[in-house]
């Protein structure tokens, strides 16, 4: 009896958690423009209205550009910094690590307000560069976390052997370190990419006339109910599923299980 109650509760809570994802996908194929569920008929009109709207496509372009550039900067600087943090022995490392992780802890809206005022004063408000900077800052914690775990689990002695055999540090990096860390490098990059591609709040504050997909979705949702969003949502879910599949695969190949990241 007691077990039955517990199992029912557990299943109901799980259902509550997953309900939103489960409902959006069928909605995106609905032929109705109202929020009827279950959908009265099958159609691809919402996908057409997404792909046929130049404003959505422009937003997609900005989203992809900003995500690619910001995640790559975050990856390069973050990977380098993670190596220095893990292998280094200088003072103040916990504090420096704290600075790198902080964008994950500080509410996004505070970062948004701070960057808004800062960018307004140095003339970057509403610029593509400002947007990329904001997204880079938000992607850094993911890269530093993932890369720190990966570098820590890579035996330092292998690097030393390569160096003692006469390899320059550049050669060691290129031929020993990078190939071994490659799966984690990709995983870290995808984390930062997704974080940027999903970002709403900071973008909403600092992007000015630039639209990204999430920013446009947010503005549409605040004003009205528009089923086009379900089509984009489904595409985003598909993208997420592919991304998580790739990350799990890469991390496993790199010998790291997801649990060690959290």
């Amino acid at each position, binding site marked *: 009896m007691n077990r039955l109650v517990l199992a029912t509760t557990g299943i109901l809570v*799980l259902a509550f958690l997953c309900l*939103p994802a489960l409902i959006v996908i069928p909605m995106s194929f609905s032929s109705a423009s109202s*929020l009827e569920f279950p959908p009265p008929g099958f159609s691809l009109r919402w996908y057409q209205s997404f792909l046929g709207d130049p404003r959505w496509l422009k937003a997609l372009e900005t989203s992809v550009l900003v995500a690619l550039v910001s995640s790559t900067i975050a990856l390069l600087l973050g990977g380098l910094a993670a*190596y220095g943090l893990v292998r*280094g022995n200088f003072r103040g490392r916990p504090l420096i690590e704290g600075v790198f992780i902080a964008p994950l802890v500080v509410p996004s809206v*505070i970062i948004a307000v701070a960057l*808004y005022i800062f960018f307004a004063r140095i003339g970057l408000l509403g610029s593509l560069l400002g947007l990329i900077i904001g997204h880079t800052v938000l992607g850094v914690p993911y890269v530093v976390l993932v890369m720190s775990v990966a570098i820590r689990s890579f035996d330092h002695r292998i690097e030393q052997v390569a160096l003692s055999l006469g390899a320059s540090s550049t050669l060691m990096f290129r031929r020993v370190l990078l190939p071994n860390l490659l799966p984690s490098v990709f995983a870290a990059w995808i984390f930062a990419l997704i974080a940027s591609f999903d970002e709403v709040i900071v973008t909403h504050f600092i992007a000015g006339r630039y639209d990204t997909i999430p920013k446009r979705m*947010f503005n549409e949702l605040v004003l009205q109910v528009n089923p086009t969003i379900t089509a984009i949502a489904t595409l985003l879910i598909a993208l997420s599923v592919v991304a998580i599949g790739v990350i799990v695969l890469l991390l496993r190949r790199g010998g790291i299980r997801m649990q060690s990241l959290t």
Partner: protein
Amino acid sequence: MAITRRMPTEFGYVLPLLLLMLSLFILPIVLMLARSVTQPEWTLEHYQDLIETSVYIRVLGRTLRIAVITTIVCASLGYPLAYWMRGLPPQRQVLAVALVVLPFWISILVRTYAWIVVLGNAGVVNRVLLDLGIVAAPVAFLYNELGVVIGTTNVLLPFLVLPLFAAMVRIDDRLLQAAESLGASRMTIFRRVFFPLSLPALAAGSILVFILTFGFFITPAILGGGRVPMVANALDLLINQFARWETAAALSTVLLVVTLACFAVSRWIGARGATA
């Protein structure tokens, strides 16, 4: 010389990112904090403004209330779920964890939107209730605090369940068996052995949910329909509508202090839980 020999190289690797973060993350936040007390000169008037204007007090009070309710609801839904998951056979456990993690990978916009489909006036739930004759008019689930709490709970539940489940799995079964062999009833075992052992994780998870709710922006904006502004939405108005940067800076400072204080408490509980 011996001391500085190793330092430059590794610190050199950290330096580029450190400079970037100091100049484009820490500096803006420090300038914002400074602005809240130095415009036009050293003053606390912007904080006084916050206290004396009933709007901000109402928004802060509402944010606090929604955060507390969301935390309580998350804890009372998440605890049974984590407890149930602990007792599942390994394969089903993996499936359950996957389902808990699944929402993490879906844009918060999408998840929030789904609730309009489910709970709106023409939504699934209301149509079922109307068709069954349980209610005469659609129930207003959305565009009020109830809608915001449902949305935030849905988004934040995994943040509580995952660490709680991980902590519960670590509880040694032999402790429970020992209690049982000493004659304790199942209820007593749970109350005196299991629950106290899971308490630090429950507390840490709850504080995390509380912190995250405090900064919520998207859910109240969409599911509250502008009628349930929380602190973040007030900041949006102050910056993007009224251009009142100083008041926004002061309100942000309040939000930041509350967040960091809660974070410090949760770290402290986490450290105690680890040593206990």
